[in-house]
């Protein structure tokens, strides 16, 4: 770039036209939203790799353990997570409508559902550990990799839920104090919906295939 161009640019900046020098955001999205979408795509690759790896390991062993005898735990967990996605959506809608109190209420309710999901999940883990399941061995026979794959996949998801719980609390607190706006609530919401969608793949692979013939 020639000196004349730089000078001209500097002149524009001085005259209050600096916005013309700033590159526009890709896809006309706010930077926060674009960042969370990029994170979601990258995170989807991580989950996909883990689930596909689980699929291959499971496929390789005809005597894969089948420790789940009912859906009494996983069905309520799925219902809670799906419902939390709806309450999060209501929170985002309320935030954009300028209804601060309603937005805070909905997002906090979502965080409560997240905590409930995590508690149910941890209770299930303790139940399996109580039966003798560890990362390297299982009490039901068959592949000893069952514990590692089960705790690996569900643990990664649980980590996302717990992280989401704290993120929702933090964003709500900042939004309530006026430091954050509706965009921040929406960004947190996108992350939360993603956590919900991943569960839709975890459930059939980790739990429901247990009941196949």
């Amino acid at each position, binding site marked *: 770039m020639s000196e004349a161009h730089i000078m001209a640019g500097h002149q524009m900046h001085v005259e209050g036209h600096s916005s013309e020098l700033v590159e526009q955001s890709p896809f*006309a999205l706010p930077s926060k939203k674009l960042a969370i979408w990029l994170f979601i795509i990258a995170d989807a690759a991580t989950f996909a790799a883990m689930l596909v*790896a689980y699929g*291959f390991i499971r496929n390789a062993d005809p005597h894969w353990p089948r420790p789940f005898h009912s859906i009494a735990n996983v069905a309520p967990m799925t219902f809670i997570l*799906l419902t939390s996605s709806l309450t999060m959506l209501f929170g985002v809608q309320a935030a954009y*409508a300028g209804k601060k109190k309603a937005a805070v209420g909905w997002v906090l309710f979502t965080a409560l559902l997240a905590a409930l999901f995590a508690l149910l999940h941890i209770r299930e883990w303790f139940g399996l550990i109580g039966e003798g399941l560890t990362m390297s061995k299982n009490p039901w026979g068959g592949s000893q990799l069952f514990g590692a794959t089960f705790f690996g996949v569900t643990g990664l998801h649980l980590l996302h839920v717990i992280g989401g719980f704290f993120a929702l609390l933090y964003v709500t607190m900042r939004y309530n104090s006026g430091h954050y706006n509706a965009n921040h609530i929406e960004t947190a919401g996108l992350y939360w919906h993603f956590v919900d969608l991943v569960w*839709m793949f975890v459930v059939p692979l980790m739990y429901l295939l247990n009941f*196949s013939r």
Partner: protein
Amino acid sequence: MKAGQMRGTGISIVMYVVLLAIAALQFLMAFSNLTTHQMLVRMMILAGIEAAVGVLFFMHLWTEKRTFILFVLIGIFAIAAMQYGWTDSFRLVYCGEKCS
């Protein structure tokens, strides 16, 4: 509440019911005496539909610019393609000991 917001809330509830119905279908399918392969294929199709509904309507991808929708679709395709090839496991699964 404005008419647009009412409509938005209505669509959200309808989509939530659709997602619940698909999840319920998955749970019913679990007890339908299918083989592992049959169940896996059916459940992954249902999970894919659930994910598509969630991404389009809950994550509002539907309302974004077309170029961005294309960008996300290409990203998903790239991830799916990576899963097909990254371990070379399909070849090993289908030809077993002949390949080793």
